[in-house]
């Protein structure tokens, strides 16, 4: 039996009775535990409204919401317990931050949950470390830039060690590198067992990251499942206010011209390129070096290096080492390999299996990339 985290049954919700159509209209959505889930939809499709049903902020007008198999209990205590499990990070950090200093704001969650001071201290340090904002700990929140505020809001949610993290447009308004950092952090959370649900209208992000997507259109759930079958139906995509992810569309075009199979569908640039690799060309190797407490020397001069994971990133920064690929490093290393060049990837040790899985996927696209530990 599948382990559903959230299940809704004919969930219907309206903000007011005068609304021409309900904000959510008989939505039956099932979100699986431990699955990278993206909720897609245009502005006003009902994404946020749906989220607020997950943590019991909104109560359905009709229908039910189940968390871990049990219908939500809307009593005060039960809700408080529920919200210790589920952290929702809203899009605009200014709404979410209400303390005057960074440290106070992050302490808010744990202290509200009655966690003692020592543990709170540990959580503050830990979550600030994860978002790379340690040096801002005692700064007033009002003096932070938009990107920094966004990170603080994120850290505040991490501090309660949620089982489920719901992120509303986590990369909106961030510059590209910061977006990559957020995605990397999300990966780390997934690996450590948190279920992450992202709502977004960035189809490229959703396609590259999610295992399963749910698409909302004007309050209706119009699709649930793996992304490819949804994107294959162009008119559905168009009517949902979305566009095709560029990897999907390039793959379709190339297949339309050359014939051949559209499957397997590449979701990343490296996968497309791999598919196009001429016969018999030599692929490069990826040397993987786990990092735990110090930056080891690869001993490989002259080949490109990348870093992946927050511990590695931090240690490199402390040691003043400059890798070639600071962000999106797995993807870059894979492209090096396809181009026949070796590369080295430094990574946080716990992420090993995930990285191997991503590298292993290349095999489906025609090339096995050799990994040296």
């Amino acid at each position, binding site marked *: 039996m599948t382990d559903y985290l959230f299940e809704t049954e004919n969930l219907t919700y309206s903000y007011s009775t005068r609304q021409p159509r309900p904000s959510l209209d008989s939505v039956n959505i099932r979100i699986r535990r431990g699955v990278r889930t993206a909720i897609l939809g245009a502005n006003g499709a009902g994404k946020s409204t749906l989220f607020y049903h997950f943590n019991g902020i909104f109560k359905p007008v009709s229908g039910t919401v189940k968390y871990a198999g049990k219908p939500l209990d809307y009593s005060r205590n039960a809700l408080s317990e529920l919200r210790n499990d589920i952290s929702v990070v*809203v899009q605009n950090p*200014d709404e979410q931050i209400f*303390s005057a200093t960074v440290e106070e704001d992050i302490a*808010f969650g744990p202290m509200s949950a009655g966690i003692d001071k020592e543990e709170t201290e540990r959580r503050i340090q830990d979550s600030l470390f994860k978002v790379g904002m340690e040096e801002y700990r005692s700064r007033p929140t009002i003096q932070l830039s938009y990107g920094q505020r966004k990170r603080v809001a994120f850290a505040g*949610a991490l501090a309660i060690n949620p089982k489920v993290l719901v992120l509303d447009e986590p990369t909106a308004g961030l510059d590209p590198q910061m977006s990559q950092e957020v995605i990397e952090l999300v990966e780390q959370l997934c690996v450590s067992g948190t279920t992450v649900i992202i709502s977004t209208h960035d189809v490229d992000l959703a396609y590259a990251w999610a295992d399963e997507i749910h698409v909302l259109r004007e309050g209706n759930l119009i699709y649930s499942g793996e992304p490819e079958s949804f994107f294959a139906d162009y008119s559905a995509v168009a009517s949902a206010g979305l566009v095709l992810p560029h990897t999907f569309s390039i793959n379709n075009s190339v297949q339309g011209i050359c014939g051949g199979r559209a499957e397997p569908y590449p979701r990343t640039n490296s996968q497309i390129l791999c598919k196009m690799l001429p016969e018999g060309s030599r692929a490069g190797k990826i040397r993987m070096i786990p990092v735990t407490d110090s930056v080891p020397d690869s001993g490989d001069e002259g080949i490109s290096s990348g870093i992946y994971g927050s511990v590695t990133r931090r240690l490199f920064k402390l040691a003043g080492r400059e890798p070639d690929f600071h962000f999106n490093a797995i993807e870059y290393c894979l492209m090096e390999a396809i181009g026949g060049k070796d590369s080295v990837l430094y990574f946080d040790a716990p992420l090993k299996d995930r990285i191997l899985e991503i590298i292993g996927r290349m095999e489906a696209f025609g090339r096995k990339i050799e990994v040296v530990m």
Partner: protein
Amino acid sequence: MSEETQMDTLAYSSRMLSWAPLGKFLFVIAILIVNIVTSSMMVPFVTLAIGLSMMASSTNFKIPFFVGLALAEAILILAIGSGMISITGDKADPAIWDTHLLWFDIYMTHESFNKAWLVMFRGVAGMSVMISFATSTPIPHLSQALKQIHMPREVSELIVLIYRYGFLLLERMDAMWEAAHCRMGFNGFMNTMRTTASIAVGIFTSSSNLADKAQIALDCRNYQGYFPIYNTPPRLGIKWIAVTVIAFVLIYLFGMYTEDWIDMAELFFGGSL
């Protein structure tokens, strides 16, 4: 950056930030009181010295431009006020200067002249002490201090929220102001009026929007009806009380002792008296 933001930035960068806010407050009040109750001309100088050294050690005399402007204005008003005091002496005393200017009677006595100076010195000295407090104590610290003296929790929470959202609305106002400039909103009197009204409406709307959304965000973060404080500022210890009392007594005695040390009238009009 708006004025409030500057004050806030300054306060958070102050070297006196970690001092107990209540202690600072008590100390400043005590100094202000002793500054007023003694009539020695020397006391304001001592107060000024304390105020300036506090300002120096706290923020290297940095004050935001507009606060500086406001200070200058306050000193100007003080000067005018003192001027008025000096020329409205008691007619029973001998005058050092007695004349008519239009419909105005100018009657300066030895005493009124000295009193005017005293007021002036006290005012300037008092301001320096108050500024040193204001630029080293952010509002959230103050609200926490209020909690320590058992002010109702709601009051201090309200202060923090108003403080937080006040800044956000200020940011919004700055942005709207600039946007209005982009669209020539201040071209002529009528347009300026219209623009100002629109900005007011905009701020009002966004404050109510913000309040709505903040309620949801509070729930998202499992708000339990109170704001826990992680880093309580140091409490008002016995040390602070001791320092305050000692300072008060010392300055007071000093004031008694130096009562007649300086006579401004004599300094200025010494020859003619």
